């Protein structure tokens, strides 16, 4: 009933007041303001040498096979959920080790040629300290005559194969200088990001409290960044709308936290960035996503344990310590959102059932299985924005403070 009253009275002023109050209590509860820092995570020169060596090894093997009259073979891990295992203690999806072998034959000759030519491009970029986006790599191929890619989808697939192939040798796609086209998510809050001017080498400090109504954008590679913070936790948010609301009301100040906008399934850069916040700055990470199979099984699952198709890179690109703040199926009941829901579509039901049956993450957590079954039983989905039913800032004034009182109860 209290919730309903607040809803009726909603105005900017009261909302701010309440937000300040609740944020204050949260900060008090943590009890201290901590300043943590981290340096760049890797040594560029060593990475460069390792990448070059790996490329050379693969090509040399193909060359040896060819001159010995053998049909050359390339091995790479299978990239699918079936080749993934999950151990709670490890905390992320690991590759189960099944390899696929690509032998040079009529069906593979085109891909084989393209793989080698992209590896040659990688070598050139590593040596020349340049990079190419996936889109650019696709366009580079247009100069290859017959071997060119007709669509970016084709070059992306070959790049993924190359990535898998080299992940076995512990070399990432970024280290091969192929960077994703899309940038990472947005960040605001008490965080200072220390980057480097690529031309002068001068350090550049970005204070994420000073972004006005905008936000700091996570770059496509993050391991070279230095980080400093006084925040107590990280809130990873699914939608831009919710992120804007919390940023607008400076909730990161009241709650003393870092807000990260994921924008759907988090990109690798976003996952790596949040991981560094969690590991290097020792911050707890809470996820705030829609209550539907996509939000839970795709967005949250990928943030926490990585993806099935990129299992070879999950070690670095996920946040095993993350927990699930909401929206949980139980929240729909607890916060009276039943009439602000939509029915589950067949595709949602399929996704949830598939997760229950095949996804090692959900198989490992009885609590999650129960939650998914509850959702399926209710047959509805609720969005983050559904709280607006009780007033636009109900989420700031009521929902988040109430949930944050008991982080231990978050779903794993």
């Amino acid at each position: 009933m209290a919730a309903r009253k607040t809803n009726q009275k909603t105005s900017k002023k009261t909302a701010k007041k309440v937000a300040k109050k609740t944020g204050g209590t949260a900060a008090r509860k943590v009890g201290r303001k901590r300043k943590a820092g981290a340096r760049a995570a890797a040594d560029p020169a060593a990475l460069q040498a390792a990448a070059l060596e790996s490329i050379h090894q693969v090509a040399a093997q193909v060359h040896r096979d060819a001159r010995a009259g053998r049909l050359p073979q390339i091995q790479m891990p299978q990239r699918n959920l079936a080749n993934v295992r999950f151990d709670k203690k490890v905390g992320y999806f690991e590759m189960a080790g099944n390899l696929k072998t690509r032998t040079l034959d009529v069906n593979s000759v085109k891909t084989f040629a393209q793989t080698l030519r992209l590896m040659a491009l990688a070598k050139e970029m590593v040596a020349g300290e340049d990079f190419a986006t996936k889109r650019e790599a696709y366009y580079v191929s247009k100069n290859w005559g017959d071997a060119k890619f007709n669509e970016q989808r084709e070059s992306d697939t070959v790049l993924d194969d190359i990535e898998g192939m080299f992940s076995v040798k512990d070399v990432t796609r970024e280290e091969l200088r192929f960077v994703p086209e899309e940038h990472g998510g947005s960040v605001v809050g008490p965080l200072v990001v220390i980057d480097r001017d690529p031309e002068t080498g001068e350090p550049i400090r970005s204070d994420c409290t000073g972004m006005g109504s905008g936000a700091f954008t996570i770059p496509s590679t993050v391991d070279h960044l230095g980080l400093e913070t006084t925040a107590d936790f990280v809130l990873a948010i699914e939608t831009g709308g919710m992120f804007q609301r919390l940023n607008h009301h400076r909730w990161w100040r009241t709650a003393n936290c870092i807000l990260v906008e994921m924008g759907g399934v988090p990109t690798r850069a976003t996952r790596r960035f949040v991981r560094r916040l969690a590991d290097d700055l020792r911050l707890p990470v809470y996820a705030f996503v829609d209550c539907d199979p996509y939000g839970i099984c795709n967005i949250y699952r990928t943030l926490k344990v990585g993806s099935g198709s990129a299992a070879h890179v999950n070690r670095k690109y996920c946040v095993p310590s993350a927990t699930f703040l909401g929206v949980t199926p139980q929240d729909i009941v607890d916060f009276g959102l039943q009439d602000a829901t939509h029915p589950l579509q067949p595709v949602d039901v399929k996704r949830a059932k598939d997760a229950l049956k095949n996804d090692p993450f959900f198989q490992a957590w009885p609590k999650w299985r129960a939650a998914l079954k509850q959702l399926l039983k209710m047959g509805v989905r609720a969005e983050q924005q559904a709280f607006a039913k009780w007033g636009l800032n109900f989420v700031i004034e009521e929902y988040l403070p109430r949930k944050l009182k008991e982080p231990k109860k978050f779903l794993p």
Partner: protein
Amino acid sequence: MASRKHATAEEMARAQKEISVSEFFAKNRHLLGFDNPRKALLTTIKEAVDNSLDACEEAGILPEISVTIEQIEDDRFRVVVEDNGPGIVRAQIPNIFGKLLYGSKFHSRRQSRGQQGIGISAAGLYGQMTTGKGPRIESRTRRGKAHRYEIQMDFTKNKPLITLDQELDDWPRPHGTTFAVTLEASYQRGLRSVDDYIKQTAVANPHAEIRYQPPGSDEPRVYPRAVKEVPERPAEIKPHPYGVELGELMKMLRDTRCRWLSSFLQEEFCRVGPKVAREIIAAAGLGERSYPTRIAREEADRLYRAIQKTRISAPPTTCLSPIGEERIREGLMKECDADFYSVATRPPAVYRGNPFQIEVGIAWGKPGEERLEVDQRGRIRKTKRKRTTDTEDLLGAADEPVRVLRFANRVPLLFQQSSCAFTKAVIQTSWKNYGLSQARGALPTGSAVILVHMASVWVPFTSEAKEAIAPYPEIMKEVKLALQEAGRRLGAHIRKGKRVASEYQKRNYIEKYLPHVGVGLQEILGFDDEEREETVEALRESMEAARKI
């Protein structure tokens, strides 16, 4: 009263008289293939050429036949057919060419092109009726001088009138016959034309050399001889009891010289010995010593039924002269240039007591189009072979229905294709199994010629014009079996072609991308161009070794 007088029987009797065959023909010429000017030209030539071929073969001579068509007026043509046959004895010439239903073949149980003895005299008669001029015949036997006859037919009496009888001192050939006639006709090319007939005749008679000069050409086209042996002369056989109908049986009973029924059966029929004769006579309830000429109609009927009930072995097949697989292949190869030939001959079979034999030949794949060849090293090359014949092409395009060439005793059948047993058998065969596409109830599609030949003592035509074969179940069955046999080989060939084509495509694909493997390796490992080329060549060899066809 007298204005509308009814005829009395006596008056009617005055109008009742014998109709001569010639007169009958004059009114019903379509029955013999003279329906229209175009067909009249074809039938005239066909009858003359058929006779020439029959005569040459009977005399064991390799036929050399020349056909000339000369246009005299718009609708008037002169046809001259010359052969190197044995020639015709002088006294017989007027009867053979001037009298309908006069001939040697009607009563003989021997395989020949002609059957009734109508054709050539009908051609002369047609010429006479349309132009007023009868045929001119020149003939020379080995032993005599050449003679020239010009004949007019009295077609009320079915008798020849000799208008010219000349002995020729100087005749160009040692023996042979020349038939010349002027007739109202029209000449066209294309399907069912004289050109078509000559071409098909050359296919089925590879032992003959044919020269053909159509109107308006200066030089004859030569259809060369591909086989140097005259086909073996088929033996003459007596009728088989199963093949004789009641009326014919009664006539035979009346005409026989045998005095006992038992000896009549054994003498006049084949495959009847004392035992079979006894069985038939017992089943008919007659006496073995009954006098054949005294057997009455009811008794003849019982005899006829008894024959049908008695088991009698099949007639001998020595009377058949099939073209032969090798000759069909030769004939097709010389007149129908194709990529692949498949030929099948069935063993002899019997319908209604008549022995017959079916042969099939298929020519497939139009030359002049690109095709693939596999050399001994297993490499595939694209080649383009030129067409070797310059005469009209029997093969159609790949998206047209196949051409069906029908032959009865080596004579091409050009008309009534759809009602012919051969066409029906082709349609009823499932060609999809053999690599050709085929719509339901239609001829298969493809650049192919399907030849069907029936050799028989008595070919069951559906009409006197000898245009289509009657679909007796036994005949249909044999044709289908032959088509299947030839079709299986065609199917294997087409499938192999498809395999080679797909392999060729795959190798092209390899050829397209393999160099890029070399470039990639070169860029990473930094070796020189020579090393790159050698690496690519090594890969190519390994890959081709892994892909044997």
